[in-house]
Structure formats: C-alpha cells, structure tokens
C-alpha cells in the first residue's frame, strides 16, 4: 500500500459518512420533532411527550395500526407458506415451462405499484371482491410472494439434494422428508423470507391506498390522509414508532440472511 493512498482512503470515508448523514438526517429530525411540544415544529425544541400521549388517545390511528399489523401477519403466513412450497418445487424438479414461471415472478416487482394498485382496484371492484382489508391481503401477498421465493431459493442453493434422496431411500415418506430434512435446513431462509414479507406488507402504501375503504385503512394510508389534510405532530410520534419497528425487523432479517453475499 503506497503512502499516497491514505488521504484518498480517508476522503472516501468522509464521503461515506456524508452519505450516511444524508440518509439519516430526516429520520432523526422526525424522531426529535416527535418530542417537540410546538405544533408548528418551531425551533428551538421544547421537549415534551405530549404527542405520544395524544397518540395513545387517538383511536383512529391505533385502529389503523392494528389493521396494519393484522394484514401484515396474515400476509406473512400466506406468502411464506405458498412461496416456500413454490421454491422447493423449483429446486427439486425440472419441467417444461419452468423458465416461464420464473419470469412471471418479475411483474409484481418490476411494474410500478401505481399500475398494480389501480388494476387491482378495477378487477376486485368489477368481479365483486371489493375493497377493504381482505383485498389488501390479496394484494400484499402477491407483492411478497416473489421476494419469498427468491430468498428461500437462495437458501436452497446450499442444500444437498442427496439428503432428501437418502431420507427417501431409508423409508421416509414425501411428507416426512419435507418435515424432518428439508424444512429444518430451510428454516433460516424461511424466517428471513417471512420477515421480508412482513416488511413488504407493513410498509406498503400504494396498493393499500387504492384498496382502502373509507373508515377502514392501514397506518400508511391514514398517515397520508393526515399529511394531506395538514400536519399533526401525532403523525411524527406514530412514524417514529413505525421506523423503530421496521428497523428492528430488518435487523432480524440480517440475522438470518446475508445481504450482499459473502463478506
């Protein structure tokens, strides 16, 4: 390592620090402002927990929060189950049309949510499924499925198929092989995928926005409505809570899923 390299390296680190600052400033501002007594976000800050108290009494936001949690939990269970099954099928078998089926996983990821959301609105309204929390679950699972299949497939790459063959030849049934050999190996991948699915659903705004019925909505939809009506600092309080929750979920994912490959 030459001596000239040092200043450039530290310049790089300073730059990295600046980007991190850019990424975190709004989040920190949001959290700090949630403790500011001034309704107009006046500076300097007057510390107070009043908005958290208000939040505790805001039934609308709490209901929306519970709806969000419920939708996310149901989505997680369905998407993890269906996605894991599909990933195992892709891993185990070779069949005609496999490539096509894999390509069909891209539209939910690659088409703008605005288009997916509005097309769901049209179709669900048209055939009578209607709008509401059940429609949101339908939509969220569709968005989460490709991620689940991708994450579980990544884990399956490290799986030795001879293990399954060995179990079968030793007399285990299809189901026993799945239950005692494949799934235990897959567990970290499935947990990571489930957390992914939870995050996709819990943070989803666009799809939920088009599928919400007045009065019954999820937290992001409620927050959007509140922002457009005019700012209320309770939104900061609930947002700070959501951000902490989301970050906790990601840290959970990171425990089971290596981002960015080998390090």
């Amino acid at each position, binding site marked *: 390592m030459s001596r000239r390299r040092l200043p450039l390296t530290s310049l790089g680190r300073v*730059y990295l620090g600046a*980007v991190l600052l*850019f990424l975190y400033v709004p989040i920190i501002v949001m959290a700090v402002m949630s403790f500011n007594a001034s309704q107009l976000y006046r500076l300097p800050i007057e510390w107070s927990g009043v908005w958290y108290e208000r939040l505790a009494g805001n039934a609308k936001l709490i209901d929306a929060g519970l709806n969000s949690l419920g939708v996310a939990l149901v989505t997680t269970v369905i998407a993890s189950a269906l996605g894991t099954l599909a990933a*195992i099928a892709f891993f185990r078998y*070779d069949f005609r049309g496999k490539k096509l089926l894999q390509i069909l996983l891209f539209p939910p990821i690659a088409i703008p949510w605005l288009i997916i959301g509005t097309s769901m609105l049209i179709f669900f309204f048209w055939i009578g499924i209607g709008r509401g929390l059940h429609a949101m679950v339908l939509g969220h699972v569709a968005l989460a499925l490709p991620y689940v299949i991708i994450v579980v497939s990544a884990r399956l790459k490290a799986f030795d198929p001879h293990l399954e063959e060995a179990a079968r030849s030793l007399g285990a049934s299809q189901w026993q092989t799945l239950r005692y050999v494949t799934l235990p190996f897959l567990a970290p991948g499935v947990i990571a995928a489930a957390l992914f699915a939870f995050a996709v659903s819990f943070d989803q705004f666009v799809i939920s926005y088009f599928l919400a019925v007045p009065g019954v909505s999820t937290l992001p939809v409620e927050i959007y409505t509140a922002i457009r009506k005019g700012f209320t600092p309770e939104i900061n309080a609930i947002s700070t809570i959501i951000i902490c929750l989301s970050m906790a979920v990601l840290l959970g994912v990171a425990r089971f899923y290596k981002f960015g490959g080998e390090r």
Partner: protein
Amino acid sequence: MTVRTASETAGEGTAERRPPNRALPAMLGPAYLWLAVTIFLPLSAMLYFSLLTETPFGERVAAFTVQHYLDFFQKDFYQTLMLRSFRLGAEVTLYCLLLGFPCAYVLAKTIKGRWREALFLLIILPFWSNALVRVFSWTMVLRGNGVLETAVNWVFPDFGSLGLMFTYPAIIIGLVHSYLPYMILTTYISLQAIDDSLIEAARSLGAGRLTTLRRVVIPLALPGMAAGSILIFVPVVGSFMEPRILGGRQGTFIGTVIEDQFTAVFNWPLGAALSFIMLGFVLLIFALSAPVLRRAGS
C-alpha cells in the same frame, strides 16, 4: 439485489428429477393461482377497461373505443406530463448513480470485516422504513423556518429563505433519498465480485487510478449499476405520493394524473389507458437495457 438474484437463484439448483404426477400442481398451483388473480387478471381487466368509453358501473353502458389512447397522442398535455415523469426518473437515477457509485466503491474496496457489514446494514436500514414517512420527514427539513433553513441561517446569518419546499428540487431530494440505497446495494454487489488482483494488475501495468476505474472497475460494475438504475427509474416514473407531498403545485406528473382518474375524477378508462401507455414506455426501456442486464445474469 432483486434483479440479479432472481434470475440467478430462483430454482437453479440441481433439478434432474422429473416431478411426480401431482407434485407440481400441488406445490406451484397455490402461488401462481394467487398471482393470476391478483396480478395477471387485474392487468387484463385494466386493458379491457382502457378500451371502454366510460366506467361501466351502475346505470352506465360502455362501448369500445381507442379514444383514450388517441387522446394521449393528440393532446400535448399528456405528452408533456409523460415526458416530465420520464425526465424526473432519469434525473433521480442519474443523481443516485453519481452519489451511490463512490459510496459502494468505498464500502466494497476500502473497508473490510465487521465494519463493512455494519456500515452496509446502516445504509439499507433507512430504506426499510416506510417510504411515506421518510418523504414526510423531508417536509420538516425543507419547509420555510424548517431544520435546514434554521441551520443555514445559524451558520450564515441573514442568509434568508431557501424556498426549497414545494419545488422541483424538493421532489428530487426526497426521491433520491428514497431510492439511493437501491443503487448502493446493487452496485456494491457487483463491485464486491471484482477480484482485487485485477485492479492491482491494472495498476502494476502502469494504469493510473482513473484509467483503472474507467477501463476495469466501471465496466465490471456495469450490470449492478444497470440493475439499480432500473429498480429506481421504474418506480420513480410511476411515483405520485412524493410529488404530491414535496412538490405541492409543482408536483403534477403522469403518476398524479393517473391517481386522480381513480380517486377523484372516476374516469377509470382514461386512467387505465394512461397506465398502459406508461407501462409500454417502461417496457421499451427494459428492452433497450436488456443486453446489459443479461450480462448481470451471466
């Protein structure tokens, strides 16, 4: 991350065995039936609706027409908006590239071990929080008498107003903030796969720092940069929430007009037609960038 790993990993395992009779429908059926009902049938329904004269609910009877598609090509208003949206997408993507590449490079090539893992997590962490909430938090930073203005005036007294809120730059700042981690993530994955000895070889053969970057590093990182660009460009073109919150009156784009057709004007056929035209342009861009992306898969 997604574009790369999807093509690479989705079931590329050792699949020599032929499936038993009922295994495939049982294992793949539920997932794809779900996708059919929630993605593919709705898109078909949308195509059908885009060809109707009016929203066919209640008493109204609709006839077939291609008028909404013609409208787009005959009225400057929609074309201007579509162009504006694509310009927004291109600008945000460009800024993310310029800001994100050096960041990914520093992370992948100069930081090692646990620090790298921790910093990497720090970069994707905000990305995980609610996009809407992050955009909202920018309003507190950018607004008049907001955090940024107060800070600037504290350093330079009498600087006065920045006037950033409800402007085009405000929308750019919010969107770049939202999507920058995508670019860092995908570029980082590409950069990390470059063997350090390749860079050392170029250097020892007499290539300068810039030449090495231009002739060795950037070509090898191109697939990651392309994947990141698509992951950013597509949602930005279709964005409507960020322009509404940060742009105010400046925030009219094709996305907000489509949203209006569904939530305010109740002209679903027009909204559907505009969506499909937007989708068509997006697919065109996918097709044009396919050669670079294919290299990402190999």
